[in-house]
């Protein structure tokens, strides 16, 4: 039974650190996306913001998991960011394409 306790603790620790390091990697990608969106022209900025909504949404979704930090309201924000971010990017790209 001691082995099972150890494995269970290892699984919890591995999941926590895995999610945490992935969130840190997402933050690094988010910084790169912000840099891209601040430096480039209109479409490049749109691409940077689209990428930023992705990494922010995924990080927020991971924060909302009960196995990690259990921040419930982050889940709704994450869903809104991921879904509306992608849809908004497509719509704005259509605007930029037509040049209106």
């Amino acid at each position, binding site marked *: 039974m001691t082995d099972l306790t150890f494995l269970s603790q290892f699984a919890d620790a591995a999941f926590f650190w895995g999610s945490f390091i992935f969130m840190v990697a997402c933050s690094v990608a988010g910084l790169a996306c912000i840099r891209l969106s601040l430096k480039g022209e209109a479409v490049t900025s749109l691409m940077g913001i689209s990428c930023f909504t992705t990494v922010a949404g995924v990080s927020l979704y991971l924060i909302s998991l009960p196995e990690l930090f259990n921040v419930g309201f982050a889940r709704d924000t994450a869903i809104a960011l991921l879904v509306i971010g992608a849809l908004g990017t497509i719509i704005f790209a259509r605007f*930029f394409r037509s040049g209106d």
Partner: protein
Amino acid sequence: MIQELFVLIYAALIMGYVAWNIRKGSFVIDPSKLVLVLFGIFLVSVAGLMLLGSGLSEAASIIMKIGAAGVMFAGVIPMVAASVGLMRFGEEYGPNIFYARNHITGVVDTTASLVMIFAGILIYRLDLVAVGFFFFMFIPFVGNALANAYYYNFQRRLEK
């Protein structure tokens, strides 16, 4: 403390394997074989835990949680590599660098959505899987719309 040490070894093994794949430019082990091998390891581990006196659901959840952690660790290297690429490819490479950047942001999107899908499956969170899958379906449309917008914008600027 000893668990964290094992986590460090586990993370180093997985990240090293992913980095080896990226360095090689193709899969070191074919994914169709790798999935079967991983599934076999999962079955053997669950059977071993059941022999040690654990219930089926408890054993499966422990092993699947370790697998979910592995998926997260595997997502770190492509994410960091993509952010280095986004930082590195500046305007000095000409106007067509947009398409390279578009590809890099596609890598970020794909990594994020695949981590959501597989980690969600492994920790029994179907909402995470659903949002990840929904987002995964949007990725090609987003990339295509951005590339299309840039192309027509660039053509208009050339005409002026």
